[in-house]
């Protein structure tokens, strides 16, 4: 079996209007893939930063996957949440990215979106950081099949650094260029 090691960090979230951010992340892969070691999902610390709209997490990612085929290449999906003074949280940014298919270190800058408020009341509630809409079917984030059903607004960006190591890919004649 060919193996992939994914190492790196969720570095920061930038340009979000809301204060007190944290990220929930997970990595999914197709049915041919197997998670061997490491956490495939997690949650960062909450960063209460309001200066120049940058929140630093430096949250580590360390994962080992094995595969029998390259279909269903792993994806990283991230939800950014904002915590208000009452310790309630609501999602303010949703995004996904494919794990880079080239070995080496990659600096990724992922733009995020969130669900648009439908009524005036909803948009007022969102303005005072007391709740936006969340996604119940989480696979909407990383699949494209039912995206046409939702309306979104663009949000801030998330910076992720990933380094990918491949093992036994040359043995099975998989080339990257």
């Amino acid at each position, binding site marked *: 079996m060919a193996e992939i*090691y994914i*190492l*790196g*960090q969720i*570095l*920061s979230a930038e340009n979000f209007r809301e204060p*007190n951010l944290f990220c929930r992340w997970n990595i999914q892969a197709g049915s041919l893939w197997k998670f*061997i*070691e*490491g*956490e495939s999902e*997690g*949650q*960062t*610390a*909450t*960063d*209460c*930063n309001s*200066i*120049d709209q*940058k*929140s*630093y*997490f*430096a*949250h*580590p*990612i*360390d*994962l*080992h996957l094995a595969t029998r085929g390259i279909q269903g290449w792993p994806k990283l999906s991230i939800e950014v949440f904002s915590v208000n003074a009452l310790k309630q949280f609501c999602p303010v940014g949703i995004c996904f990215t494919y794990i880079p298919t080239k*070995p*080496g*270190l990659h600096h990724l800058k992922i733009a995020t979106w969130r669900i648009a408020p439908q009524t005036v009341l909803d948009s007022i509630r969102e303005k005072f950081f007391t709740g936006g809409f969340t996604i119940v079917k989480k696979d909407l984030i990383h699949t494209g099949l039912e995206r046409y059903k939702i309306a979104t607004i663009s949000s801030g960006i998330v910076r992720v650094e990933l*380094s990918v*190591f*491949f*093992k*036994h*890919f*040359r*043995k099975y004649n998989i080339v*990257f260029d």
Partner: protein
Amino acid sequence: MSIENFYYLNILGEIKSLYFPLGPNGNGLFCRYDIVTGDDWELISGTKTGITQCANGSRFSDEIVFNMPIECTFKSTNIYGWPQIIFSIYGKNLWGSEVNVGYARMHTCFITNEKRKTEPLIIRAPIIIPKATNFWSSLINMITDRNPELRDPKILADGTKTKNLFTFSNGGEVIVSLECIAKGTDKLDFDH
């Protein structure tokens, strides 16, 4: 699979400096570093931990220079558990007592000697400061000019344990320059 399937990773470099764009909140800063690895990693030579000198900045730059060497060699069979460095930074506060000024976490460099460009890799790790979550402790922290400390800073290297932590940052960075030399990775058929 033979039993000799291991490789060596030699990490060498220096903690160059601390950078505070808004000025440091303390003087006489020093930092302790701990290298945290997974279970499959074995230390062959060097030390995993160290403490720098007490350093002060100068009026002409934002950087507090340490120039502290880091050198260690690991033996491993696995990429999982790649060495991470945790910095705990301490300094003197308004009242002259030593307090925590923040923490930083980074992975050591991923690129080994084959892909190396001419200069060593500079890594800038953001400084993260834990925050008190209730009003009274944050008031006492403000009066005593003290930040809450982590009992075990190594939880920063483990992605599952920082869930309930509240932090803030002042834009500070730890600047580290590192080089990695690997031996025996070809045998394991890695692409990196």
